[in-house]
Each structure stands twice: as structure tokens, then as C-alpha cells.
């Protein structure tokens, strides 16, 4: 459908810029690159359910946090790091599939609240199940005693790999029957069912996809920081931030969410460093301005025109 080449070129260029940071920049820049990659993966994951399917999901932090906890608990039981991440991914994906079977029956606002509630519930359950999770004390993970540069490089590549995996999944889905069906559901779920789309299964697939990479990222993040606790692992703010990133770049586009994540993280960097007391407010102003002047996201300048035309005639 879309011409493939510029897309791949942009993708490869972006990943290269991130991957080569260790060659020319200090550890903090490398770290920022890793964070960009991590949020890129989260936003790209969200895109499956929020962008393609049009379900306003706010579960990202739940999947991220659960991934972190499953990974941490595995590692504390002596399971090697890589395997722990894999287990976290699988467990959380299964959890998302089950959960999706329940809450995807909701639509619109109700789904939005349901998915936020999942984050809160996960936090509450994790913090009261202290025998397994340490409750409010949090969990320590085995400290990795590598030199900081090596460690940083390692996690940069890990996060990049997760990002890449999520992007490849996005491209595959976009070109497949699944992607097409999800877009139909986005447009009109009743009509989608009427042309023969098994909407339940499709939505669960999208929700599960949106959970998997978050879980991997969460587990990797836990190994990286070496300590997790319920409040920091299940943050509503994080959930909303990921959504903002995806919107900023362009929900429903392939590269948009990752691009949005990069732009958002870099803006945040800029404001923290320069405005000690007002950084949050300035970021707020930026969000407001973006909504006004770039409502469809950075990538949607073209799609915008089409959308406008559609909106005028959209009712009947």
C-alpha cells in the first residue's frame, strides 16, 4: 500500500543514531538513548491496541510493572537474566490475553477506565502480596557488577532490540489480515463484525501484542536499576505519558509512536536541565500547543487533510 522505502530508510537511520551513541557520546547520552528506545518500544506496543484498533488503553504501566515484577521474582529465584525476561514476556502476554477477554467487552470510555483500573489493581495486589513481592519494601535484584560503560551499552542494545522487535511486529501486522481487521474495528466495530471479522479474537490479539513488549521492557528495566517497588512500577503517569508520546508522533502510523517517544523524552530532558521549578508546567504547555497545532501527530501532516474531510461528513 504505502511506499516502503522511505519508511525503512527512516527506521534504519533512527536505530543507527541510537545504536551508535556509545561511539561518540558519554554514558548519560547513551542512557538517554536507551530510555528513548524503551519508551519507543512502549509507545509502539500501545499502538497495536490504541492506534490500530482505536481502543483507548491505559494499561501500559500495568504490563510494564508486572513484567518488572515477574522478571525480578524469577531472577531472585536464581533463574538467569535472559530466561527471566522471556518468562516475564510470556506470563504477562498470557495475563493480557485473559484480561483482554474480560475488559475488551467494554467500549470507549468504559474501556479507558477499565484499563486504568487494571494499573491501580496491579499496584494494590503487588503491594499487599508481600510474601512474594516484598510489598511496600520493594525487591532488590542481583546487582550487575559490570563497569558502567559496558552495562549501559548492554542495556542500550537490549532496549533497542525490544524496540526493533516491536517495530517489526508492527510492520508485519500492518500488512496482514490482522492489521486490516483492526483498522476496520477502529472505524466501526459493528460493521466489522458484519463483514465477518471475529472482533473478539482480533482485539485480544492486539491487546496481547500491546502487552508483550512492555513486559520485556519492564523486566529488562528491573534488572537494570536493581531495585523496584510498587509505586514506581505501576505509575498512572507513565501510562498517560506513553499515550501522549504515541499521539505526539501519530497514533496508528508505523513509526509515529517511536518518533513521538524520542521527541518527548528529548523535550523532557531539555526542560529538566534548564527549568528546575517549572519543568512540569513547561512540558504541559508543550503538550497543549502540540494538541492545537499538530493534532494528528508529527507523522500525520498528510493524513490530517483526509481526516478533516472525513469529519465534516462523518455523521449520519
Amino acid at each position, binding site marked *: 500500500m504505502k511506499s516502503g522505502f522511505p519508511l525503512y530508510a527512516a527506521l534504519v537511520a533512527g536505530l543507527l543514531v541510537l545504536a551508535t551513541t556509545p561511539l561518540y557520546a558519554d554514558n548519560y547520552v547513551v542512557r538517554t538513548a536507551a530510555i528513548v528506545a524503551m519508551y519507543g518500544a512502549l509507545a509502539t506496543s500501545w499502538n497495536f491496541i490504541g492506534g490500530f484498533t482505536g481502543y483507548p488503553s491505559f494499561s501500559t504501566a500495568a504490563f510494564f510493572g508486572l513484567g518488572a515484577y515477574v522478571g525480578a521474582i524469577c531472577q531472585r529465584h536464581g533463574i538467569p537474566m535472559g530466561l527471566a525476561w522471556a518468562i516475564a514476556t510470556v506470563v504477562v502476554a498470557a495475563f493480557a490475553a485473559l484480561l483482554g477477554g474480560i475488559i475488551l467487552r467494554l467500549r470507549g470510555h468504559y474501556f479507558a477506565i477499565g484499563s486504568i483500573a487494571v494499573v491501580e489493581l496491579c499496584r494494590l495486589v503487588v503491594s499487599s502480596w508481600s510474601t512474594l513481592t516484598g510489598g511496600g519494601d520493594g525487591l532488590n535484584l542481583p546487582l550487575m557488577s559490570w563497569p558502567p560503560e559496558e552495562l549501559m551499552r548492554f542495556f542500550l542494545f537490549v532496549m533497542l532490540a525490544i524496540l526493533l522487535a516491536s517495530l517489526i511486529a508492527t510492520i508485519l501486522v500492518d500488512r496482514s489480515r490482522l492489521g486490516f481487521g483492526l483498522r476496520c474495528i477502529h472505524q466501526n466495530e459493528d*460493521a466489522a463484525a458484519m*463483514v*465477518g*471479522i471475529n472482533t473478539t479474537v482480533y482485539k485480544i490479539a492486539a491487546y496481547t501484542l500491546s502487552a508483550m513488549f512492555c513486559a520485556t521492557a519492564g523486566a529488562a528495566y528491573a534488572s537494570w536499576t536493581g531495585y523496584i517497588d510498587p509505586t514506581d512500577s505501576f505509575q498512572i503517569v507513565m501510562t498517560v505519558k506513553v499515550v501522549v508520546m504515541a499521539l505526539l508522533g501519530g497514533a496508528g502510523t508505523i513509526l509515529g509512536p517511536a518518533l513521538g517517544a524520542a521527541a518527548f523524552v528529548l523535550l523532557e530532558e531539555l526542560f529538566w536541565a534548564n527549568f528546575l521549578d517549572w519543568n512540569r508546567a513547561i512540558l504541559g504547555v508543550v503538550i497543549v500547543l502540540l494538541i492545537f497545532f499538530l493534532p494528528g501527530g508529527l507523522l500525520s501532516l498528510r493524513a490530517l487533510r483526509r481526516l478533516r*474531510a472525513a469529519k465534516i*461528513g462523518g455523521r449520519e
Partner: protein
Amino acid sequence: MIEPILRLDGVSKQFGGLAALTDVSFSLNEGEVVGLIGPNGAGKTTLVNVVTGNLRRSSGRILFKSEDVGLQKPYQAARRGLARTFQIVQPFPAMTVLENVTAGALFGAGAGSLGDARDMAMQSLEFVGLDALADRPAANLALAARKRLELAKSLAMNPKVLMLDEVNAGLNSSEIDGALALIRKIAERGVTVLIIEHLMKVVLSLSKRLLVLHHGQLIADGPSAEIVADERVIEAYLGAKFAARLKELNHG
């Protein structure tokens, strides 16, 4: 005798206290074109919704090729070949006309790949005469074109039974002629068609057999000519003046 392709057996549907359908039984034979008429609020749309699984029947059996499909989901109905159009058209607004129809071919007809589906979709667009608008967003179409899009989408699903809920409403006479020709062509392909319409001209020129719903009950089922002369039907639906006009036309 050949087996009916669709059979309803004592189907009822209640909304709270309101009986929208009461004990409705009839069957459609393969390849038949049947009209379904009835006053506003008689339960025609509800009947279609019950057959395609958009609503769950309260009681009774719905048999598609002798299989009880009373509990099916809408997507299952679509895959079985039970297609419908909506009285209030339901396109995928931000997608192009072609993409809309492709969805029908891909999921309803089970096309092997996106490419195949697109080819099938293009054929069905040509069939209904919308091919020129293939790349327009569906939201920008005027009513008539939207109704035809709805038809094209259903056709691309390769249906066995097609239920048309007022696809001709809002069209003017010459457009209706075009639509009639189109529906005839569809029927010629062997598709069973159930037409719901208030335009007697359409119903009468397409179907030899009519079903009449009134207050959720099937009050008549038979050859068209007999039905329009039926006192109860005139009383409930056509109105004296219109019946007179019809008679005049038939004579003249």
C-alpha cells in the same frame, strides 16, 4: 422437495415488555427473491438483526441450511454467507471505498490474501458501478453512493443470502431503476435475496412472493398480487388511497 436455505421457526423477540417479533415462521428457498413489508415499527429490521446475530432471539429456531444458527455471532453469520445491509448505512468512514469493500472480501468471503481480496473488491465495485469512486474516503459519499457501497461490500462477501434493509430508500425514480437492475443481476447469480422496502414499486417489480409483518406478527405470506389485494394488508400497511392507485396502475 428442495430444502429451504433459511428457515425461521416460531421466532420471537422481546424488548423488555415490548414484543417486537411474535412467533414468526417462514422459509426462503435458494435463489428466491422475497419482499418483506410492514408498517413502521412492525419489526422488520429486528427480524434481520435476529437472523444475523446482532440481536439474540428470545425464543424459536433459526435454521440456515438445516443448521441451527440461533446463537451465532454476527461474524459467524457473515462467514456462513448471511450478508446484510444496514438501514442506516455503516461504512468504515475514514477508509476508501475500495478498502471498505476489500474488508468484505477478505473476511466475509475468506479471500486468501490482501491482493486477492482487492481484486474481488474491485469486481464487486464494478458490478455496482462504483469503480470510479474507488479511492474516495467513504465518509464523503452522498447517500445513494453510500447505499451502493453497502451493497458492494455485502456482495464482496460472496453471500448465499442477502438481506437488504431499505437500500433504495432515499433514491429517486431513475436511480431506483438502476438499483433494480442491479438487484436483479445479483439474484441471477443465484443469491437468495430478502428485500425490505417501503417503495412498493421496488418490492413488486422484484419479488413474486411477499411477507407482511404487522406488530411483530407475520400476517401474510404469499404471491405478491394476492397480498396487495389482501384486506388486512391494505388496512395495516398500504392505505386505501395507495391501494387504489396500485389497482389503477395494474389495470392501466
